[in-house]
């Protein structure tokens, strides 16, 4: 079989997928959940409860405001003990609803909703009501992605089953264990988007997932399953689109500009549950893993469970390296174990000390490796030189804003220069500057 792949760059970190054989199991109900009202890109949700309120599992506690925003639901039944402000990994001063668990556990799965006669708009409403967001890390509200502007015609829906981040296996397990649910989710999305063609891309290092999904979609000529070459960042939207269709999303544009919508496996599963069981997004699968973690595995966890609860349940050695929310290539370091699992947390990875790497101030030796691996075709060493000299405008000209922050360049840089971090600062600096200029212009 010919493997599809993107055309330029990429790296192949040792994939460390220790948990690909571990079935998804439920984590214990946490004693307390802390649910931030800002888990997605866009406007935070408006808090609907106050301290002392009793809430039911699945009850709406945060309401989406504005177009790009998502609903938030209580992930457990219990009592709201506080609504407080705290930081998340990406934002400061966010409202947290703290719920003490207690009360009934709801069974969502006793009756199935037959969506075959439901019109697409109604289906979209259901997805929106359930508060589904992109669960692969970007956390973009899904209903927004599923309603592209009318003037753009969508012709392909792509399922992102690449899961190219090292260590993470939750998408893999979901595909192996719930292939029919995924395919049903795909059908729902097909209906919403009105597309005729579905392409599913799965990295070749998950042969059982490829097999399961192929089998589940057998007899449906509109669904094509492709094996992808194992190469990071194969699961990047732009790379996946290029690998499967040969199309390139224009610089500064969106997949919808080339007639494509991409959703990752976990999101599709959430859409399936939202429509078929009318279950809001209150829990998610994640991979809890690391070389030193004995109970590493794939677990269903309630949104808002503090990471500390997982540590208590599955263990964490006293001597360890960085703890990461997400994968090691793009995830964020956790510094406080009170941080909750959010809708976008695809894994908790505990690195052993030796796998941490030190950032050094070694000079760039112009070895060219960063340029070689950049999947976007940027020249990270050059952008670094420019950002060093605060020549942000020139850096933008040279493609700074096109950087997808995949981290491939930092991963290979022998001088361990924190390239991605510099680009993130550079981009932020540029955006602030643009915003200030726009403000001045009135």
């Amino acid at each position, binding site marked *: 079989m010919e493997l599809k792949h993107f055309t330029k760059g990429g790296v192949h*970190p040792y994939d460390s997928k220790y948990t690909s054989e571990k079935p998804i199991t439920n984590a214990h109900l946490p004693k307390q959940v802390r649910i931030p009202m800002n888990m997605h890109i866009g406007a935070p949700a408006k808090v609907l409860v106050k301290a002392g309120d009793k809430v039911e599992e699945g009850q709406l506690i945060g309401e989406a405001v504005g177009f790009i925003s998502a609903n938030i639901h209580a992930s457990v039944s219990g009592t709201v003990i506080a609504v407080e402000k705290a930081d998340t990994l990406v934002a400061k001063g966010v409202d947290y609803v703290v719920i003490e668990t207690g009360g009934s556990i709801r069974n969502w799965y006793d009756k199935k909703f037959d969506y075959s006669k439901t019109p697409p708009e109604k289906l979209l409403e259901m997805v929106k009501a359930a508060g589904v967001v992109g669960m692969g890390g970007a956390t973009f509200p899904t209903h927004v992605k599923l309603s592209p502007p009318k003037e753009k015609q969508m012709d392909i829906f792509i399922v992102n089953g690449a899961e190219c981040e090292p260590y993470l296996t939750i998408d893999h397990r979901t595909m192996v264990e719930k292939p029919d649910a995924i395919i049903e989710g795909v059908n729902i999305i097909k209906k919403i988007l009105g597309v005729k063609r579905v392409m599913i891309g799965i990295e070749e290092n998950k042969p059982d997932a490829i097999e399961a999904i192929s089998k589940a979609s057998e007899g449906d000529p509109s669904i094509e399953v492709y094996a992808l070459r194992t190469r990071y960042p194969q699961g990047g939207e732009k790379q996946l689109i290029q690998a499967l269709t040969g199309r390139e999303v224009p610089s500064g544009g969106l997949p919808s500009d*080339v007639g494509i919508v991409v959703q990752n496996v976990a999101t599709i599963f959430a859409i399936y549950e939202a429509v078929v069981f009318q279950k809001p997004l209150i829990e998610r699968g994640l991979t809890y893993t690391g070389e030193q973690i004995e109970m590493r595995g794939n677990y269903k966890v309630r949104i808002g469970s503090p990471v500390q609860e997982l540590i208590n349940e599955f263990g964490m050695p006293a001597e360890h390296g960085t703890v990461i929310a997400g994968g090691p*290539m793009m995830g964020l370091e956790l510094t406080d174990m009170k941080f909750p699992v959010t809708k976008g947390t695809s894994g908790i990875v505990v690195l052993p000390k030796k796998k941490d790497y030190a950032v050094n101030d070694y000079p760039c030796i112009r070895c060219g490796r960063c340029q070689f691996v950049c999947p976007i075709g940027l020249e990270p060493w050059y952008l670094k030189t420019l950002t060093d000299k605060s020549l942000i405008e020139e850096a933008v000209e040279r*493609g700074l804003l096109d950087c997808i922050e995949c*981290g491939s360049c930092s991963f290979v840089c022998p001088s361990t220069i924190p390239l991605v*971090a510099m680009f993130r600062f550079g981009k932020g600096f540029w955006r602030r500057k643009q915003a200030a200029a726009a403000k001045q212009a009135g």
Partner: protein
Amino acid sequence: MAKAIGGKAATAPFSPHIHAPLTLHRIMWDVVIALIPATAAAIYFFGYNAAVVIGISVGTAVVTELVMNLILKRPISIADGSAVITGLLFAFNLPPSAPWYVTVFGSMFAIAVVKWAFGGLGHNIMNPALGGRVFVLAAWSGAMVNVWSPTVPTMMSKGLSFMQASDVIIEKVPYVTNQVYSQISQISNTVQTNILTNQVTVDMITGASPLGSLKSMYETMSQATNAVQAVSHASHVAPKMAYSYWDLFIGNVPGCIGETSALAILLGAIYLMWRKVLIPVLPVVYIGTAALLVWIFGGLPMGLGWFAGDPLYHILSGGLFLGAFFMATDYVTSPMSIKGTLIYGFLLGTLTVIIRLWGGYPEGVSYSIVFMNFFVPIFDRYLKPKIYGKGKAAVLVKGGAK
């Protein structure tokens, strides 16, 4: 962005959190390891003094690096191996008879001026070792190019011990056997003619490196006007006659310390390729271009016409391998893009051949590289890779496929 807290400042608080095993130190020390075969060959072919020159050069380079670190208040960088590489490569560019002061000042110049005056590793605009070479060539040209002795193994095959042979090399005494001594003294004024007429062989009379002998041959022949017709038949084989390809390949020919053995250099290069430190695009283009151009034009200076050059003789001699694999490919002073690398390699090959065939020196490699080094920033500025989403593929389907 998550902040680093609790003494974690030394690790990466931002993604990615893992790193490929290849680090700066490993790359540099890999290059040092890759230069070991050439070092060993140097000592084998040029005697103990080659070891002394290499030792002095590396020692000076490392000490200079340390001093520069201290003067400029930079972190001590001798452990990164880059100074050792410069010391080695500079020594490789010296004749085995190089006096100690030439070695010391050249090596010092390479590190202190060529490398650190521009800001240290990664900032130099010229290969430091070659910069050092150009410096000593200007300052002590006498010590750099004149009489070359035959190699130690050659002399040993004529009955000298390793030490004796090494001494001959340092003293630059042309070594001859008794049998041919009288013959040589008779013909000493017409040496070049005699080479052509095959009366003596070069390793007996000495005086020129392979390219030097080739060059004098061109000159003799071009002076010979009418007589040249007479020797032109013989001169088809003339360049080959000077040294056998095998001697050239293994390095059993007079020349600079580290550049003569194509074999030893190749061994090191293969190691570097295996370690993924070296991608051989530039060397292949460089050497390929040189071979092609020598084949096309190499016969012209000798009056042999087009397509009569001897590419093998040229690519195996005169430090082309050392230059192509270890100097031109220097990360810091070569272009970044593949396109740039191709053009750069082509220009290097062209320049080298021009200097060799028509220039004032027999050796074109180091001048070509130093010269081309200056143009690298231009390559980097104008030859950029295509950015995803900015090319044709993106424009074609823009607005959504219908």
